[in-house]
């Protein structure tokens, strides 16, 4: 394909990707701050919505922001490690129940999870009684719940990638006397950086925008995440009036995700594995 054609195509898709975001930007800097007064292109420029948002007493945005980023960073890091361990076993080892295990992982993920919310609610009611530090209104309890889904899609993604990394590499390491743990940390982990970066990003984004579970879990205004808090912001009567503030909050929420992406970009792009295949 000609390079120019590639550019044209990608630019069209970019336009499609960006126009709703432009609309949100326009709403965020629109001094009127309502839905009805917002156009695609900004009709005014002011930071009044941001000021309202950051000084509001009823919406502790800064606190929500911290909660969300903290949960997303810790939970995605932990789930990355858990799923990478599992992916290594599924890709490199042959054991009884391997295929069944893989299929089971896929199937369990398909159960409409929010219908299990009643059950999860009951479980955590008990946990809250016994261990308040991991119960409702705590980030740690919510994290445990998120780690329940750590295996699953991530494992599949990594296993698919590991399958394309030549086995000869770890066989060579075995011959050199490496243990399986050494192979995992010294040989495999450096080679899978691109997929780790992609998965970390996906896990981070998934946790940031997770809403249903967090909504059940976090009732206390101080413990809410951005998704739960912001949903309350435009609920009911506030929808039109708070739209500017909501748009401002949406943009601020995107900042950590975009930062994580920029941070991981070079790993995503560099084809480390391609080099390994040659070796």
């Amino acid at each position, binding site marked *: 394909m000609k390079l120019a054609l590639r550019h044209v195509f990608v630019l069209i898709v*970019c336009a499609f990707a960006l126009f709703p975001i432009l609309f949100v930007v326009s709403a965020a800097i629109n001094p009127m701050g309502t839905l009805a007064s917002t156009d695609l292109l900004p009709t005014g420029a002011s930071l009044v919505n941001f000021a309202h948002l950051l000084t509001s007493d009823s919406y502790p945005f800064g606190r929500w922001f911290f909660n969300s980023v903290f949960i997303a960073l810790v939970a995605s890091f932990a789930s990355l490690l858990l799923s990478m361990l599992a992916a290594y076993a*599924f890709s490199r080892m042959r054991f009884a129940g391997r295929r069944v295990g893989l299929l089971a992982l896929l199937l369990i*993920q398909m159960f409409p999870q929010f219908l299990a919310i009643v059950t999860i609610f009951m479980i955590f009611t008990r946990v809250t009684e016994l261990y308040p530090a991991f119960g409702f209104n705590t980030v740690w309890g919510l994290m445990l719940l998120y780690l329940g889904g750590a295996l699953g899609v991530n494992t599949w993604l990594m296993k*698919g990638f590991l399958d*394309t990394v030549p086995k000869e590499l770890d066989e060579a390491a075995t011959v050199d006397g490496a243990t399986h743990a050494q192979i995992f940390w010294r040989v495999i982990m450096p080679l899978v950086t691109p997929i780790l970066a992609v998965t970390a990003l996906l896990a981070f984004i998934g946790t940031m925008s997770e809403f249903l579970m967090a909504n059940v879990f976090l009732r206390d205004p101080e413990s809410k995440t951005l998704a739960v808090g912001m949903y309350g912001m435009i609920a009911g009567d506030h929808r039109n009036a708070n739209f500017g503030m909501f748009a401002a909050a949406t943009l601020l929420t995107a900042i950590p995700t975009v930062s994580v*992406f920029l941070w991981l970009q070079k790993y995503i792009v560099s084809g480390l594995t*391609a080099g390994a295949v040659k070796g």
Partner: protein
Amino acid sequence: MALDVREVPRKGGGPKAAPRPRREITTAFVVSRIAVLAVAAAILLYAVPPLVAAESWVSLALLGAVSAAIAYLYLTRRFIPAKYLVPGTVFLIAFQVFPVVYTVTTAFTNFGDGHRGDKAAAVTAIETGSVRQTPGSPEYAMTAALRGDELVFLLVDPKTKQVRLGDAKGLSPLAGAQVGTTGKVLAAPGLTVLKAPEAAARGQEISALAVPAGDGVIKANGLSRAVEGKAALVYDAGCDCVRGNGDTWMADESQGFFVNAKGEHLAQGWQVGVGLDNFARVLTNPTISGYFAGVFGWNLVFALASVLGTFALGMSVALALHHPRMRGTRFYRIALILPYAMPAFAMLLVWRDMFNRDFGLINQLLGANVDWLGETATARFGVILVNLWLGFPYMFLVTTGALQAIPRELTEAAAIDGATPWKAFRRVTLPLLLVALTPLLISSFAYNFNNFNAIALTTEGGPFPADNPQVGGTDLLITYTFRLAFGAGGAQFGFAAAVSVFIFTIVAVISAVAFRRTRKQEEVYA
């Protein structure tokens, strides 16, 4: 040293073909074992005391067994795959498998509004709910207080000014209480007296507490007075029935209700197993089975269109950018990932407003006056478009990731052999991509099949035809059944669980079939 799995000869038979010298026991080995033991011990130290305090022996035994199993697993040199699988699996079982299994068992019960607790709880609720003040009984000044976490009443007799403490077990004298002029208790040793707003916040708990006294009970009347009364309805264990108000309600264990001769039941029931009733109801209920086919069809279209649309678009841009001489890829990548970086739930609500007929952005841009979410066809188009916007960056990202793993030499070799770019893509790149991505496509299908948020936050299932407010044009099985199960009729968790088992079965079968088809493909590389 720990044995590598590959040391075991592949073909299985006999002892190891070539025994290798034992490796030295390294520092890392010792340290990692100590770490495992320390973590297991720390968990036990933290988790055991509350369980002992709550006398929850089954949980305690379970915890002990799991800790022992984990310690054993990491202290031996065997079970190598398990060492890698167990950490994630523990979480998976506790927070994913167990809730699902529990939900499935719920499908065989009548659990829901009116059937939440066991029979004893139902009897208590019926009896205390029917308490009427006995004529001539004293009225106490009542103060709500906390003993630890437990709610108790501090009761002051208007005549004797004697202060007594009432809890669920009965009355006991209370010494050292400081009584105010209004007769309310201001402070008492060892107790936290609730202030008015705190007491108001616990209004439900306060009205539910019944303190046994004499042949009746003392119950709160408002937040500062309590009266002695008698239950109008009394449970009689002899006939397993509830008597009172000149009627008798017999316990019906198959329904979980107390039913009288006329077939009427008391509002409070208890949880019983109902066998396959809930499943039968899904199949025979005309409102559910009648529209099932229609909703199911659209549900399939929605899930397929979402997966194929996002994959096609995401892969196309990933391929377009995957070229050594492509400039500006950094900028493009950021632009393309932005929809995914925006909080999805917020953007769903924004899209809903963009489709608004009167002041929506779409109509404004097109100069049209289409009621996008008001007509079934356009609403369906709308939700698929929204889902495409939300979902294609994911496919773009995972395809980019997978493309990194495909050596460029392969496509270069194909080009040298005279393959057109399309042929090289079709025969080399795409099959290799699918090896890594098929499972993701399948799970993306499953996710979208049950994509509750995408529908609930945009169209809420609508538009609804005038003659049927139950089934909307964009309803998925999950939103539709959710409304039936949790809607106007009150919470019916048992029934909702049965419906989700049906949905799960459908998705699982479709996915399992798709999965089997990819089996051979995977083994090429596995």
